């Protein structure tokens, strides 16, 4: 029953684990105590907004978390079972010191977890999450006295959120959109909002299904066959699929082609932004076509390290117009700083409403380059050293080297990124180039360099 809490549930951007194995109501109670202690002492704050996704274990974990937070004297606004965006939007409106959302995002249903954001929509940085981890592992909490116990206020997260979208989006055309919620948390917001903004919706897996029995909650291409065929049957203008909690949307164009986050980002950058001056943020993994397509339009492209936390933080600081994470998180700060997936299809609909051309045409305006991803085994104790040495060596050897997150080497006709995995004994190599031949050449060259460095470090030990 009382097994020690594994350090491994605390990851860079969130806490995750298998329900009843790595995480439990007892552990979430402690995480609540730690989050409350952190908000009270480190942030000098007094309230946390909390909600949970549709997973069957989310309410149990959320209640345990609330019991912990309130025991430290920090108040709770409880949104209940919602999509990610509903709780984030509501927490923002309530000026929460911290917003907590119980979810394991796109992971299978037996998983769960929790992630934190600040009230303004900026993601909770890794070092602060580790401070909460340390409080949990050290059992270092301060229970308050009876007259200072935190109070819980249930709040409705659905109404204000829906009203926000109906005030922001109005369409002249009746667009037909296939909507695939995968039975997950977006069933709680997307179908109703799509209908109320005037879209003609073709529902795919839009009934709540907490065990994700119809399709896995990760919207990768191989899980979207039902969506794609529903689109063809109904001659849809486009389609959208969401992940488990609703922080990632995958767009499918009118021909059934599944778009990458970069492709979607380029279309939004080209046709969907109100201003043509300002910053667009991409991470070091994003395709070079983002810069090629959007910089000539007048935007300044800023490259940052991987992680949606950095994306939100950077977007806030630079007052960015758009942020693209190659993993699928998109932010459009004219609406929210946080990565609510619902704004993505609505923005696409807005573009199609204004431009009388099919989405596929807009996508095809930008070239799509071949990419390659490789994983090299490398022991945990040397992987960061290997990257450090590569940074030094490659900086001397090449002109355009970016070392903010791993090492990225840019050439006119392509680029290579070498990063150590935070969680596994692996070094990842990502490359993109104009042609397959160049891609092969580039990736092979740098694979070799990396292998050599790993070997060198190994022998040095």
């Amino acid at each position: 029953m009382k097994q020690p809490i594994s350090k491994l549930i605390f990851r860079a951007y969130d806490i995750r684990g298998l329900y009843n194995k790595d995480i439990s109501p007892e552990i979430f109670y402690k995480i609540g105590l730690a989050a409350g202690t952190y908000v009270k002492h480190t942030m000098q704050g007094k309230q946390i907004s909390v909600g949970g996704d549709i997973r069957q274990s989310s309410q149990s974990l959320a209640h345990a978390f609330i019991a912990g937070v309130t025991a430290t004297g920090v108040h709770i606004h409880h949104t209940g079972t919602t999509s990610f965006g509903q709780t984030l939007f509501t927490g923002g409106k309530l000026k929460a010191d911290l917003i907590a959302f119980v979810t394991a995002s796109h992971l299978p249903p037996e998983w769960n977890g929790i992630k934190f954001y600040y009230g303004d929509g900026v993601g909770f940085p890794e070092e602060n999450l580790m401070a909460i981890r340390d409080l949990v592992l050290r059992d270092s909490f301060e229970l308050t006295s009876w007259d200072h116990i935190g109070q819980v206020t249930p709040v409705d997260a659905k109404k204000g959120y829906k009203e926000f979208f109906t005030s922001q989006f109005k369409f002249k055309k009746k667009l037909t959109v296939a909507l695939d919620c995968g039975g997950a948390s977006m069933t709680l917001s997307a179908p109703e909002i799509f209908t109320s903004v005037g879209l003609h919706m073709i529902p795919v897996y839009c009934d709540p299904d907490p065990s994700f029995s119809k399709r896995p909650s990760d919207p990768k291409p191989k899980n979207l066959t039902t969506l794609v065929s529903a689109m063809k049957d109904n001659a849809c203008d486009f389609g959208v699929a969401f992940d488990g909690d609703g922080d990632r949307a995958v767009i499918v164009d009118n021909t059934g082609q599944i778009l990458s986050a970069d492709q979607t980002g380029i279309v939004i950058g080209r046709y969907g932004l109100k201003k043509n001056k300002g910053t667009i943020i991409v991470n070091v993994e994003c395709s070079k076509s983002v810069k090629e397509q959007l910089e000539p339009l007048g935007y300044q492209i800023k490259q940052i390290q991987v992680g949606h936390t950095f994306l939100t933080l950077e977007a806030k600081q630079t007052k960015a117009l758009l942020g693209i994470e190659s993993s699928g998180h998109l932010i459009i700060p004219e609406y929210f700083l946080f990565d609510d997936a619902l704004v993505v299809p609505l923005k696409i609909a807005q573009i199609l409403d204004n431009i009388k051309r099919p989405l596929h045409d807009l996508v095809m305006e930008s070239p799509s380059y071949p990419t390659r991803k490789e994983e090299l085994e490398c022991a945990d104790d040397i992987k960061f050293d290997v990257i450090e040495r590569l940074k030094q060596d490659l900086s001397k050897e090449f002109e355009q080297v970016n070392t903010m997150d791993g090492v990225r080497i840019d050439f006119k006709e392509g680029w290579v990124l070498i990063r150590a995995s935070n969680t596994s004994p692996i070094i990842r190599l990502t490359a993109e180039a104009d042609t397959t031949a160049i891609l092969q050449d580039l990736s092979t060259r740098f694979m070799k360099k990396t292998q050599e460095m790993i070997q060198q470090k190994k022998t040095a030990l």
Partner: protein
Amino acid sequence: MKEYIAMTRLFGTNGIRGVVNQDMNSTLALEMGQAWGTYLKKTIPRPKCAIGTDARLSNQMLKSAITAGFLSTGCDVIDVGLVPTPTLQYTVKEKQFDAGIIITASHNPPQFNGIKGTADDGTELTKNVEEAIEQIYFSKLFALSDWNDVGSYSTWDGAIELYIKGVLSRVDVTSIKKQQSHVVLDCGNGAGSLVAPLLLKKLGCVVTELNCEPDGTFPGRHSEPVPENLTLLMKKVSETHASFGVGLDGDADRAIFVDENGSYIWGDKSLSLVGKYITQKTKGGITVTPVTTSTCFEDVVRQNKGSVVYTKVGSPIVAGVMKKNHAVFGGEENGGLIFPKFQFCRDSAMALATLLEILATEKRPLSELIAEIPSYEMLKTKIACPNEKKERIVNQLVEEMKNHQEITDIDRTDGLKLYMKDGWVLMRPSGTEPIFRVYVEAKEKHQAERVALFYKNLVESLMQRA
């Protein structure tokens, strides 16, 4: 974090109680939910549990913790919000839930809180069930559900409406409305604030409200409706020339009345007044009350050809005996009245509505009706006695008094109750302190004092010999 649970029993006479974030904390509540959930799951595939709270500041914390526990063992939780204890109990019965949980420390000071449970009929848990849950709690062998079988949580805000409707359907609303009684109502900032004002308005009363805002700091008065806490109520009744006043405890299962002159009416008297009225209507029948209740109750019930069954102290025990004996009425001398046609638990709203019906029927002031109840002198005191000597002392007392000419009857229901020609004495060993609680009742005050002194001396001499 320290856990202070060292005792082998968690449940007291009225649930689990303790000081918040000390012995009554979220860890206990969470594990109590898991223990209780494990117990329910043994016989019910998918138990449905209703949960409610009184107005205390720590309610939501403990509610969240115990809810997490129930959910994690695969029980569905239906949260009915801030409600009086009898409202939750009625809801459990009427909506056919499998269990009821109320977060309350009744009349205790605000730093306390507690957990009280009901069975599927809304009655408080029996000792056997409590012990079974405790056993699971201490073993920590909880039957935790897999990820896909965790319980669902929902809220339901219909409990108060359902309850008020239930109360109204059991009294003569038309006659009560005609009276247009003026009632001064003191809810003590407790859970009764959610029900009593509304109920009185529906019964056509003019209401003067005191402390009718739920507030967990209890700013108006202490929660226990004893005379020293109801001075403002008494004053207000005479000042406003009201028909009567009523004071509730923290979770509104008990009601204490003040007559139209602003005089406090002891719980024995109001119990007897209602008992008299009900046995008149039922032409006798069985009534139930603990051994501590004044003889005036038995007097009025007997006048109506009814009978009294005496029980140990504790409202769940009274309710249980009532159920078994198909009693027509029962209750305690602390304002806890039980109306079996409505439900088998203490119920202040039902007591209040019934008192209004009595006034509407009798058409006389409350003080007059109370004056007709026989009067006895009751004296309460305590005698120090080490716990380990208690049993022996009681046995020796029985031997000593068996052949005493003054003693007409000996009752061992709860401690030792000795009946005399015009009165009785009751010695109850306290469960928590090294004392005997001594109750003496007689016709005259000096008699009561004499008896009390006699037994005090006797116990002390027995102790010296022991």
